[in-house]
């Protein structure tokens, strides 16, 4: 069915599970989670709860390109290691 060399073929609602397929959700932030490494005990609750999977399991690093600033990590953190600070944009 796909005869041509170019990519014109079926148009479908397929989306591939790739990083950032919902766009740069970091653009949505009004408040930004900031981790205090001193207080973090690497329990990984934030890693479990983050709805955008922007927190790494190794080293508990926040990927600010995709963190949308929802603040769930700060609420769930049992040691108070994550605080939400006002985002400075542009």
């Amino acid at each position: 069915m796909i005869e041509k060399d170019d990519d014109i073929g079926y148009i479908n609602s397929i989306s591939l599970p790739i990083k950032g397929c919902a766009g740069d959700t970091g653009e949505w932030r009004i408040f930004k989670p900031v981790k205090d490494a001193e207080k973090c005990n690497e329990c990984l609750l934030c890693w479990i709860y983050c709805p955008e999977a922007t927190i790494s399991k190794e080293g508990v690093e926040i990927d600010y390109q995709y963190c949308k600033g929802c603040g769930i990590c700060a609420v769930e953190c049992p040691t108070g290691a994550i605080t939400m600070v006002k985002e400075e944009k542009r």
Partner: protein
Amino acid sequence: MYEIRVHGLGGQGSVTMATWIAKAGYATGKHVQAFPFFGAERRGAPVKAFARIDEDPINLRSQVYDPDLLVVTSPNLLDAALSDGFSEHGHLLINCGEDLAKRLSGECKMDIFYLDAISIAMDAGLEYDGMPMVNIPLFSAVIKQAEIGSFEVVMDVLAGPSGRGNPDDYMTAARKGFEGVRVAKL
């Protein structure tokens, strides 16, 4: 006809603000229309809302592409807002501080009104689930700059059923928005 397009983030109350604008126009005896365009319906996701006010019944059903007033509730939405269409005869109302507004007035082809609505909302204690309710001061600023009505109209609209927060705090934030909106000049 006066047309407004609002660009906001889900949870900031942009859709509600568009309906408030319509209510204000309606209170002054005009025909009005207000509608949203919902995207992913996720908290924080970009949202658009539209309002029209006219002396005559409104037959337009399409979105607003050359607004008399373009409202942007967060500076990083500005590029997307402009790419959706603007009128050089129209105005931009943006939620930001003076420094950024002045810089933008050099780059942007429209006259700019600005208001630091986040600070106003937070000072008034108007926050909902971690989102400052910027729609209250911005709504107030729209009513003033678009000359839709007086501050009494703002009070009447906001005195209706609200649900979130203390009505006195609403009024404080609305008053600051009405009086605090400025024209950006280089």
